């Protein structure tokens, strides 16, 4: 990589690594794995940097690598629990806020229980705010599969203990 490319890549990492780490965290469920996943994806991007002509599409490129790498890790890293979760900082909370946090904790647990593909679709649709077409492209599946799989994921979340409609409505009151 020549100095100019290196600086461009460095700028990209500086600008986008925080957001990309969050996406990695959504996919892995814990920060150490998320950092590892992001570094791996960015390292692969580094090696391919000069061949990426459309710099507007780098985020999509990195995201696709993360999705693929995540799948391959899942096959190879058998020592890592699939959805290990780490401790997050304590957050001060009032009564309503405590309900909301409890609901989100339950939701997070339920998301962790989703099969890998369902979880990836939920992350892309509801965190990345990708359209169904964009999600299908990112995962290499049909739009119909995105629709049906996402619907099944949401149904599964609804059935999860602690996430019945009344719990959600109660927390929103």
């Amino acid at each position, binding site marked *: 990589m020549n100095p100019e490319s290196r600086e461009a890549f460095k700028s990209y990492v500086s600008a986008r690594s925080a957001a990309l780490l969050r996406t990695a965290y959504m996919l892995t469920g814990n920060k150490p794995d998320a950092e590892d996943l*992001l570094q*791996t994806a960015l390292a692969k991007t580094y090696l391919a940097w000069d061949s990426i002509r459309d710099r507007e599409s780098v985020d999509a490129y990195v995201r696709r690598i993360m999705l693929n790498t995540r799948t391959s890790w899942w096959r190879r890293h058998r020592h890592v*629990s*699939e959805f290990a979760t780490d401790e997050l900082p304590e957050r001060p909370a009032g009564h309503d806020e405590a309900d909301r946090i409890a609901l989100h904790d339950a*939701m997070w647990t339920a998301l962790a229980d989703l*099969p890998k593909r369902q979880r990836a679709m939920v992350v892309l649709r509801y965190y990345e705010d990708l359209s169904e077409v964009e999600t299908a492209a990112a995962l290499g599946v049909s739009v119909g599969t995105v629709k049906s799989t996402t619907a099944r994921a949401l149904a599964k979340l609804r059935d999860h203990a602690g996430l019945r409609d009344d719990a959600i409505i109660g927390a929103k009151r």
Partner: protein
Amino acid sequence: MNTMDDEVRATLHDRANLIAPPLDVFDRVESRAKRMHRNRVAASVTGAVAAVAAVAIVVPTVVSGSGSHHVATTTGAATQQQTQQPTQSAASKYALDPTKPWAYRGDQKAIAPATLAKFRHDWAAKHPGSTLQPLWGDIYEPSQQPEVVFVAKVGDSARWGMVMGAPDGSQFVVDSPLAADTVVLPIVAPGDEVARLLAVSAPDAKAIQYAGDGVTFKDMAQIAPGVAVTPLEGDQAIDRIRVIGVDGRTAYQGAVPDSSIGATPANLLKWPTRGTVPNGLLQEATTAYAKSRQQTAAVVQTNVLYGGIDAAGTQYLLAQAWISGDQAASTVGYLKHVDGTVELQLKAQTAADAVLVVLDVTDSPATPTETLVVVPQPTTGQVLYASSAGAKFVPAPADQYGVFTVARDPMARNDRLQVLDGDGKQTFEGAVASQLCGVSGCG
């Protein structure tokens, strides 16, 4: 937009906002990228090949066997051919003689006295009376562990292999018979990103070449005289390796070992470890399994599938276990009850494409029910249980790892399990009894 959509979105963003921005990302990424690059192109080549004239006669045939690589010999004319059969050529000068092995090449740190002593100890535990002789060694950068290719006389025959250091002992990645007139020891070893093809030949071989497409040979990167490495990125159905003698003629040409069986048994389940393995339980299980195979724990390798503890306090784990060099792994259950009694369940071997593995946890003979711990493929959506042939399937409860439990009547007959994937498609239905088969039969 409905309430559930809103809450999913809010939860994800709420969680994401708690993640602190990463530090020093660029430096770490650049370092990792350079390491990947080195591994891919093996750019850090050291040493050069000493060129010594030679005329060869005999060439070995590489036969990929499940779990190990065997090198057999064929004798024939000195011609080169682009077929799936190894090529014959002049080569006996390059052949490995176990009584007068090739000189050691590589990093001396890989055979530091304590390291070599440990490798030899673990090898002798596997093959009593045998001493391994190192041929090449290195400290593998990603793991910072030594790896050594060796040959050893075992009684009247000889074996060769590759051993890697590991925190819990020596890992014999290859342990195979050495055929007469072996010219090259090809090893598919774990890599940082992709598997590596490592080839150890005679120190005076001119070059070792690899053809990912089976036809277009390129020099592998030499890392020591007669030792070369390349990332294994070709089509493994057709890729080939060859050794070029100092006269420029092909001394050996043959297939590359199948990477899927390079380091592990063919039936290894590529599932993540789930649950929690209680402290010390794996070591106990490993020792018990080794004893059942009349081996030492040092040569046992495991692939833990699930570990947990039930309401009565019984600790258990479900794993695949094998002795280094085995072609297939055994499926093993290990239970430790609260009264200290232990139970090793040697189960029927599990196929690599198995949908589920089941462990029978019974706390005591007086317990009215036994617990079936059903560890399914990670993509599983639901496991259902029918208590008899005519009973309706009902969903079994799952824990956070996607492992299901069934309270089963010990007297149950014809009860069945059904597995649905994440999309609700059935992937398995069968009798519980068929999942409780032991090495000596089903019940």
